[in-house]
């Protein structure tokens, strides 16, 4: 085996320049494909990451009716017993986060706006999503204080600030009317753009009482140790809650399918580019293998004459094809990883930056390090190599020894 590997390897360097050019072309295709994907996915990953930590959790427990009608009427009873059950459902469950959430009107006495009101536990939030890091002024409240923290956009619109009083108007559980006054203890810059204009945080206990929903939650957000454990932890949770026919478990892809669809849609462009690039590079690769085969027909004839089997000879040519493919992919992956690390995140400046800021985004383009964008390139190039290899394979198996010797 070693001899065949040596033979294939040395054969590659019979024409150094040709091999180098082919390898570089493959590496180039890999780099461009990875960068295109990485740039496109980077922003989505950031969005998803924020949505997961601020809005949904990797997993979430809800009342089974809540998905159809997101109303306080469909909140669920949450006590120590349920908490224990969830925590013990799977030892990969690291954090849980209780929330009560509803839509209300927020007013300053003169004008009013729609607000998404969250009853939260600031300590637990902070462990889950570093909430306190986003505070811009004042402080977060105690669990049963009659207080509120406003997102910056909401505060601006209502022209309220720390120390002012916020009025909340709306309905509690089962149509109970709910209206109250809350002292603003702090302001925060919410990392999700839409939320920054409508989020109002209240202490969980205060919110439950205010909304006639004592001991009730609309969602229990859950984080496993690692993202990829989401599905198996979901399965364990469903098992643990199987006698509770009111409660359902959702995973984050189930909770925000639109975002994932949008990402897929946005990746279609780079994928098409990748395909075109690979078709071009594939022809170059094919050309190299074609000439490497044709210029050695006589040599192949001699080897078959002295008794080398066609499959063994094919194996040598296969190794040659594989080596070119591997060298191209490995170089491409290493260089693209290096490039990503070097330029991530891309900070926009000047007018471009201002345009992005005006649209309400950060002027930063994050890049993705998702491993699949690297190995999918490897798979693509390998498939191309297999396709390219068909030619020498076909040539070898119909090679006539006598004609090869005369060529």
């Amino acid at each position, binding site marked *: 085996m070693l*001899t065949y590997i040596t*033979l294939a390897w*040395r054969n590659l360097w019979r024409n150094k320049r040709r091999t180098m050019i082919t390898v570089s072309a493959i590496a180039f295709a890999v780099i461009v494909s990875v960068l295109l994907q990485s740039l496109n996915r980077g922003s989505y990953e950031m969005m998803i990451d924020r949505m997961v930590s601020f809005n949904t959790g990797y997993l979430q427990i809800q009342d089974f009716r809540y998905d159809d009608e997101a109303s306080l009427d469909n909140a669920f009873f949450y006590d120590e017993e349920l908490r224990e059950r969830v925590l013990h459902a799977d030892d990969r469950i690291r954090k849980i986060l209780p929330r009560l959430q509803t839509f209300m009107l927020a007013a300053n006495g003169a004008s009013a706006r729609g607000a998404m009101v969250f009853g939260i536990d600031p300590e637990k939030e902070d462990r889950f999503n570093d909430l306190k890091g986003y505070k811009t002024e004042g402080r977060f409240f105690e669990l049963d204080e009659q207080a509120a923290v406003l997102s910056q956009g909401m505060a601006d619109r209502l022209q309220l600030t720390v120390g002012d009083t916020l009025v909340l108007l709306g309905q509690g559980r089962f149509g109970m009317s709910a209206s109250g006054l809350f002292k603003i203890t702090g302001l925060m810059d919410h990392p999700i753009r839409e939320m920054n204009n409508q989020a109002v945080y209240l202490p969980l206990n205060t919110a439950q009482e205010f909304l006639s929903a004592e001991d009730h939650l609309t969602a229990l957000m859950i984080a496993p140790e690692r993202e990829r454990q989401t599905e198996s932890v979901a399965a364990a949770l469903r098992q643990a809650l199987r006698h509770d026919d009111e409660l359902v478990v959702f995973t984050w892809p189930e909770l925000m399918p639109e975002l994932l669809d949008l990402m897929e849609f946005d990746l279609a462009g780079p994928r098409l580019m990748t395909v075109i690039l690979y078709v071009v590079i594939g022809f170059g690769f094919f050309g190299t293998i074609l000439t490497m085969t044709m210029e050695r027909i*006589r*040599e192949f004839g001699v080897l078959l*004459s*002295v*008794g080398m089997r*066609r499959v063994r000879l094919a194996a040598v040519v296969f190794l040659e094809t594989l080596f070119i493919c591997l060298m191209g992919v490995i170089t491409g992956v290493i260089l693209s990883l290096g490039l990503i690390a070097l330029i991530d995140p891309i900070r926009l400046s000047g007018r471009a930056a201002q345009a992005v800021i005006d649209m309400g985004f950060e002027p930063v383009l994050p890049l993705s390090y998702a491993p699949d964008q690297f190995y999918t390139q490897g798979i693509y190039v390998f498939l191309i190599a297999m396709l390219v290899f068909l030619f020498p394979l076909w040539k070898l198996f119909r090679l006539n*020894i006598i004609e090869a010797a005369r060529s």
Partner: protein
Amino acid sequence: MAILKTTDLSKVYNPDTVPVHALRDVSVSIEKGEFTSVVGPSGSGKTTLLNLVGGLDKPTSGEVEVEGIRIAGMKDRELTNFRLHNIGFVFQHYNLIPVFSARENVSFIMLLQNQDKEKMQERADELLRAVGLGNRKDARPPQMSGGEQQRVAVARALASKPKFILADEPTASLDTEAAMNLLDIMQRMNQEQNVTFVFSTHDQRVIDRARRVITLVDGAVDSDEHRDPDEGATA
């Protein structure tokens, strides 16, 4: 039993378009230890005959037997294996793998035969010494002269321990000195180790060294004479 025997061997190229009768009813028998030369002008069918007895091509009619085994009915894979274990080949040029050293070229055939790895190196070195290339073991074909390359090819043919060695015009692209040197080596192998050689040539000096000369004219055997090479050509 004859080591190699042909019976009414014929070959017609392009039978459907412009038929070329390259070989006509050739029946010869070669014994172990012979040093036979197939001679004749260009186009007389020497290469065709060697290709057929070497199992590289199929006859139109007639039989080839190697130690009584008929090779006609063998499938491609079987035939390849048969060649590997029974026949040594030396061609006019491009015999060697250019990226392998002399020693690697000789070892390679033993590797194909699955010979004992331990002994391969040793045997390759020994054979290269025997063909006078003891100090050129690590040279690769592009660094070797034509004569050296042909000697490596002979060493490779010997390495597979074949029943006989077929050499199609092995000296045709060599100068006189290299050609005589190659012939000396082949002759010594024949005398010392009783290796059977069948080689084709149209070079009179090479013909003079053979102990049996089969002459082809237009694809048919014109004469077949045994002689003592020391006496020179005594037709």
